């Protein structure tokens, strides 16, 4: 039985672990099969240190043409599935060609790795980082093991963060002025603002604030744009009259947002918009969309 199993199983097990695996922060990562696993979290310029343990199964000898570990940063576009584009690729040779008889541990280190992009799992695109251990073999296929990890990059609070203030309207029908306290928000931020009704000649029913995420992938004629409404937050119930001001306070923490990604490696962009939607009694919608910049602030706690 064991033989039988052994025959289809790789001849050895490979374990990849990080040196600070116990203390390092783990974040959930959604796998392709829908399952969520916890993986280590890194940021750019960090050294990725760990060890690879290779353990031949049943003390079987494993012949190989060398063992290497790669750190890959990949972008996968779903319309071009299976075709990974590596924007980062680092290799460390772990072993020269030879044979493995018993469990062997290889330490590895990628010091101060440049990982400019964050891991991202979008609608049409995925950006991921993996450690890939390859045991090269002749004739038979290589034995490969992956260890995914997540990269998040923190930005300091922007020095310039203007308020968004704008007066919009339909002539002689509806004039409003809205104001968001900032144009750049970190992921756990709160959107504070106000909407002033300068002129109301239509009967409004309610008003929502939406957070929309616009993911564009590809370039040129092959550009795919996917817009997703991540939050729909009711701001107002009922019809306001002239001179009324409606407060906005929207906590961003409950929503799964990412920072704004601007033209990542010429492959994709992710942008965020605040969309103010007014609905009148005949269910006509009036809206105004404003882009906001999202950034990741280093969480202190």
């Amino acid at each position: 039985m064991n033989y039988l199993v052994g025959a289809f199983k790789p001849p050895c097990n490979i374990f990849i672990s990080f040196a600070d695996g116990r203390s390092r922060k783990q974040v959930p990562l959604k796998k392709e099969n829908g399952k969520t696993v916890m993986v280590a979290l890194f940021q750019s310029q960090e050294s990725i240190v760990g060890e690879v343990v290779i353990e031949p199964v049943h003390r079987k000898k494993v012949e190989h043409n060398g063992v290497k570990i790669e750190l890959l940063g990949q972008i996968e576009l779903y319309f071009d599935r299976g075709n990974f584009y590596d924007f980062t690729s680092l290799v460390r040779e772990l072993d020269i060609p030879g044979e493995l008889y018993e469990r062997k541990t290889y330490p590895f280190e990628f010091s101060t790795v440049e990982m400019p992009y964050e891991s991202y799992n979008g609608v049409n695109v995925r950006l991921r980082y993996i450690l890939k251990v390859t045991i090269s073999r002749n004739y038979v296929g290589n034995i490969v093991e992956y260890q995914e990890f997540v990269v998040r990059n923190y930005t300091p609070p922007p020095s310039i963060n203007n308020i968004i203030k704008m007066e919009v309207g339909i002539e002689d029908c509806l004039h409003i002025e809205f104001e968001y306290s900032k144009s750049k928000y970190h992921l756990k931020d709160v959107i504070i603002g106000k909407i002033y009704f300068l002129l109301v000649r239509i009967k409004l029913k309610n008003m929502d604030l939406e957070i929309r995420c616009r993911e564009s992938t590809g370039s040129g004629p092959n550009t795919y744009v996917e817009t997703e409404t991540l939050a729909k937050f009711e701001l107002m119930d009922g019809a306001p009259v002239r001179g009324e001001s409606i407060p906005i306070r929207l906590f961003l923490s409950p929503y799964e947002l990412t920072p704004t990604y601007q033209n990542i490696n010429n492959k994709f962009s992710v942008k965020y918009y605040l969309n103010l939607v007014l609905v009148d009694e005949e269910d006509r919608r009036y809206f105004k969309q404003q882009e906001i910049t999202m950034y990741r602030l280093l969480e202190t706690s």
Partner: protein
Amino acid sequence: MLLIGAEDEEKWLAEGIAGVQHNAFYLHRALDSNNLRDALKYSAQMLSELRTSKLSPQKYYELYMRAFDELRILEMFFKDESKHGVSVVDLYELVQHAGNILPRLYLLCTVGSVYIKSKEAPAKELLQDLVEMCHGVQHPIRGLFLRSYLAQISRDKLLDIGSDYEGDADTVMDAVEFILENFTEMNKLWVRMQLEGPGRVREKREKERSALQELVGKNLHVLSQIEGVDLEIYKETVLPRVLEQVVNCKDDLSQYYLMDCIIQVFPDEYHLQTLEMLLAACPQVQPTVDIKTVLSRLMDRLSKYAASSADVLTEFLQVEAFTKLSNAIEKVIEVQVDMPAVGAITLYVSLLTFTLRVHPDRLDYVDQVLGACVKKLSSIPKLEDSRATKQVVALLSAPLEKYNDTVTALKISNYPRVMDHLDNGTNKVMAMVIIESIMKNNTCISTADKVEVLFELIKGLIKDLDSATDELDEEDFKDEQNSVAKLIHMLYNNEPEEMLKIICIVWKHTMAGGPKRLPFTVPSLVFSALRLVRQLQGQEGDIVGEEVPATPKKIFQLLSQMIEALSAVPSPELALRLYLQCAEAANGCDLEYVAYEFFTQVFVLYEEEIANSKAQVTAIHLIIGALQRMNVFSVENRDTLTHKTTRYSARLLKKPDQCRAVYACSHLFWVDGQDGIRDGERVLLCLKRALRIANAAQQMASIARDSSGPVTLFVEILNKYLYYFEKGNKQITAAAIQHLIELINTEMQGDSATSDAFLASTLRYIQFQKQRGGVMGAKFESIKL
């Protein structure tokens, strides 16, 4: 949606309640298992039921109360951090994640109240935040209920903050600011309700709005309950802000309700001290607002307050409450051009009531109020509104009731001027009120001037006013005139001169009353004058020789004028009686001429005016009675008069009447007393003549009816015989009596069936006298029965 049936509404309500109950069930489960996440989820779902637009305010309230009860339970849960393990600060954020605004804000308010209680953050900021966030709900009904919830749930905390915090003025202000803000917003929403929907459901809207007024007013109520709100804060912050809102909202329902609310919830003392400010707002409200009721209530409260203790009265004087109120009312009337007269007058009535209660000693104030009312009344053509006239009556009655003394009212110079503006009917009613007041209080009007004023006031009763062509109710008219007659008796002065003046004035006025009134008023006046005559007669000795204006003679002249006036009516019977009264009075004064003159008038009347036979009978008897008592006449004069009387007696139409008159005439010749005439012969003559007539009557009766008539007349004559017999008239003998008795007995045999009681009594009397013995017994002895 606007024309929803009640059935549909019931259905929607039932659905809403079911929704609330369903979610409340899961909410309870979550609370039992300390599951915060689920608790928030289900409470939000439960509160989503309140997002409906389909229910009327009443139904919505029902639904709201269901949810409210559940929220109290949730609040308890939130309070207990050990159960859910989340700090109140985090909780405050957590509830704000809800996507729908209404559930979000209900939850926020709920947590907010727990937060305030925890004192982990300044109450001020939290309150401001809550009241600000509630702006998100702009739907009038939902917004009102949400804010009402906020007010409700924060109420006990506010009272804590406003009262407990060691009197820290800032925290009090925080609470006040919060309530004012919430109040303002609620009122705005409430006002806005009016604008929702098309005009045709306006009335319904208004009804619905009235149902919600309590929600708005609740805020003011809470304000009044905060101990920290002292006069200073009230004056500087609360009242100006509330009034600002009242004035600015430009909605009549709201303005009316809120003004009333202010007046009702805050202490009187505050009102008194801020009277100016409060009143200044009154002219600024919408012209359609029933501000008069508001002001009336204010004045009502203030006057009650004034009555509560003597100390506060000085305060009223200090703040010049009357002047301020009076000015305010003037301004209101000026501004509200369309206010119907009734409104203005109602205001004056309230002011007057206030004045009378607070400053009963200030008659000038009363006069001032009436003067203002006159001014207003003169600007409108004539009062046609019955309610307005009613109010004027109330206005005029108030001082009468207050002073219990009509004389005081007579001093008010504007009083008659107000009355001038009444229509005739009301004028009369008012005059009646005045008279009744005089009667009730037994007020004696004792000077000619006052009488003059009084009659000027009640002139509606005294004479026909210019256009009195309208139908008069006979009954009412009688009542009125009887009252006037009664009133005349209340005019009295001990001083004959003044009294005469009074009588002259009254006569001057009543003279104008016309034939319909004179029969009522003249008798009173005549008797009033006669009283004076008797009074003069009593003190005659003292004032002889002086040039007294009030001599009986003069009065008698006046009297004859008065009675003469009755001939125009014509009312001869009455005039006759009055003449007789006068003659008697003249008799008392020893004025033979005058008495004779009066009798002359009597006979003239009898001859010329009294044609009715029944009236003649009565008149003759009256004349006989009066004449019998006269003692001033000389023999000739008396003879003339008695002669005339007897003649007239014998000429009456019916025999029995003749008979009775004639035997009555016998008394004219037999007067008891020291120097009375005792002409026994003529007495007998009269009686015999009476007997003859009785006989004739008896025969006529037997011919006409084939049976002899009753013997009553004979018995009556027998009684007369007995009377004179006893009195010692020599011409009346026992034999004559005996004879008469026999005659009667013979007549009686005709019809034995009827035994005459009168006769029996008479005979029994004779028997009694016989048995009595003594002189009288001896006298009667000779009469045999």
